[in-house]
């Protein structure tokens, strides 16, 4: 639908619908995904279209239904398990880390787990510390998982299919704050490689390396920086595990500077890892120390102004990069 605006929510919904139509082994399960239409209305009306066997409401037991999803995947199905927010995923962490991520290894390569887990992440609209954290780094730490972060409408629409095609467990992070955001989808969506980061904007002066909600923020900052004569490149990591080092290295080798942005709190974050890889691979290409703008090290607060202050904002990216480039 070229030229037409579409919400991030609708992109996700279309992707799910398409997957359900394309492969009868695909089904979706999770809390309130059926009759309620999804906590964030992503799966609205899918129950009516596909029926209760494929749009399955589950009890409030993350360990239970994620475990059931693993079992279904082992049994030949292609489950999409929705965990309402990343905060609740920790209840299922045992299933994710000790079963989904390890079964292939522990079975001597006999059992793949073709499971997709979707979860909402990040700050939303004042959903406070119960629902708002950015815990991608926790999952990106675990070998055996592929971790995807949906930072654009394009990825919201087209990432699910390759994730389902992956024979091993994939966790997809979606962002609550972006659900109502309207954008145009690219005319022709290329098939998305879920092993590759993507350069969202080419530039020569500095690489802004980010993911998730950081992508549109970085693009907004890059537009403002361009007005000040700074040509920033924006790299969307997309895959938080395994990291696509080559795209990172190529970008930093070109711009000689790296600025990392993420909503997750700074300590032991994805940007910590990216920074280390840049040091390992790009040291002699660096003209400035790698710098980061990350979430504050706090439980996400409820009040709007504090919520805003707890994660990076485009104006902060602009200011920090101008300072880094001595442009102020």
């Amino acid at each position, binding site marked *: 639908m070229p030229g037409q605006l579409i919400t991030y929510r609708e992109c996700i919904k279309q992707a799910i619908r398409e997957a359900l139509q394309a492969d009868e082994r695909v089904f979706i399960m999770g809390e309130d995904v059926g009759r309620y239409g999804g906590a964030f209305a992503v799966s609205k009306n899918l129950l009516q279209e596909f029926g209760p066997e494929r749009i399955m409401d589950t009890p409030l037991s993350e360990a239970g239904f994620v475990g059931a999803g693993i079992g279904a995947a082992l049994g030949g199905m292609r489950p999409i398990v929705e965990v309402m927010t990343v905060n609740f995923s920790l209840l299922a962490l045992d299933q994710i880390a000790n079963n989904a991520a390890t079964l292939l290894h522990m079975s001597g390569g006999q059992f793949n787990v073709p499971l997709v887990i979707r979860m909402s992440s990040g700050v939303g609209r004042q959903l406070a510390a119960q629902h708002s954290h950015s815990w991608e780094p926790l999952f990106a730490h675990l070998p055996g998982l592929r971790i995807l972060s949906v930072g654009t409408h394009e990825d919201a629409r087209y990432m699910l299919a390759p994730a389902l095609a992956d024979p091993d467990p994939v966790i997809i992070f979606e962002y609550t704050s972006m659900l109502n955001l309207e954008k145009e989808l690219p005319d022709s969506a290329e098939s998305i490689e879920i092993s590759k980061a993507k350069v969202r904007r080419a530039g020569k002066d500095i690489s802004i390396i980010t993911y998730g909600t950081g992508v549109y923020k970085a693009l907004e900052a890059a537009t403002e920086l361009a007005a000040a004569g700074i040509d920033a490149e924006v790299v969307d990591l997309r895959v938080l595990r395994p990291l696509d080092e080559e795209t990172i290295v190529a970008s930093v080798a070109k711009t*000689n500077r790296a600025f990392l942005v993420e909503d997750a709190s700074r300590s032991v974050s994805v940007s910590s890892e990216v920074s280390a890889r840049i040091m390992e691979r790009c*040291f*002699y*290409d*660096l*003209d*400035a120390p790698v710098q980061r703008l990350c979430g504050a090290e706090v439980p996400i607060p409820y009040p709007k102004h504090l919520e805003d202050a707890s994660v990076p904002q485009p104006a902060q990216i602009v200011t920090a990069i101008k300072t880094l480039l*001595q442009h102020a």
Partner: protein
Amino acid sequence: MLEYKMPSLGADMASGSLREWRVKPGDRIKKGDIIAEIETQKGIIEIEVFEDGVIGELLVKVDELVPVGTSMATILTEEEAAGKRPAPAEAPREEKPAEAPAPAGSTTETLPHHIRASPLARRIAEEKGIDIATIQGTGPEGAILREDVEHAIAAQAAPAAGKAAVEHAAVPEEVTPEKPAPPVAEEKPIPAAATAQSIRMAVAAAMSKSNREVPHYYLETKIDMSKALAWLADTNGQRPVKERLLPAVLLIKAVAKALNDVPALNAWWENGLQLKESIHIGYVVALRTGGIMVPAIHDTDTKSVEELMLALNDLIPRARALRLRSSELADSTITVTSLGEGGVETVYGVIYPPQVALVGFGGITEQPWSENGMLTVRPVLTATLAADHRASDGSTGSRFLTAIKNYLQQPEKL
């Protein structure tokens, strides 16, 4: 007690300025240790000592302009040192500031320092053969950034920098990047340009003196390089990449062996002919910024081709970074220049006084070659000799060039 005197680092050197002491009173030194850095027209030179002992007193302050032959430091024997300081080694170090009062501005320069520069800036400077210490940084806390290095490179190319550079050369202490000089963009590239300019002047002086005083004669011969190149290809095929040999080492080695046969050309002309026992071939290194350095390969004749390759790998980058030792600058007994990488076939050189000969090699090119009544194509090298007619005659030069030619026909024996 011995006195360490300002060495002469070339025929035209009248004085040098002390940039840094590398030793303190009380330090034990061995023959060959670097004790100071001296700035000359040819850049900053590390100077060596020639005796073992203990540094007694430093007689010259940093930044002082010191005429050749002036006492710079006293060197004590172990016994003298023991008599002078009964206390353990630490004691005199504490007294040192009182012993050697230095102007406030220069004390920091005697401290070991780390140059703040981005990894990229360092890499570019190294690739371009620019001494990073000569660049003024404009980054955070004075760090040198890519932009600063690029400005320095641009400034070297810009002729407008020339006049400022000459004025600047008279005030060498300003070259030091640690000086908290105001970071005025127009001023920062001058130090590098100043070095290039002074090297140009040094080459000009030496070559003018040579052309004025030395009656040159020239001989030339063509050398069939097919055996030498075949041997190189064969031996390099069996060597790891790092140990592969360049044709230059065969040429240098052949010159060294020919000098053993014809020692009259391994000499200096200073108040008459002085034959030199050791063979230290000076090898001309073209600087990327213009100008040349001629580091000596010490005892060339005793080195194997492998050792010569190692020596070149060591000397050439240091020559380009202007980090040569005093002995490497002053000891050459003959000069070899090879323009083989360029397109020229023949080099007619100008002798570097007080030496009495210079061997020039052009590029190796395929040429028609007749031998035993047959015409064929061979890789051919033109070797020339520029020699001082005060010191030798054409027949000597002819024997020498012929010897080089013969040695290159038996590369395996080099």
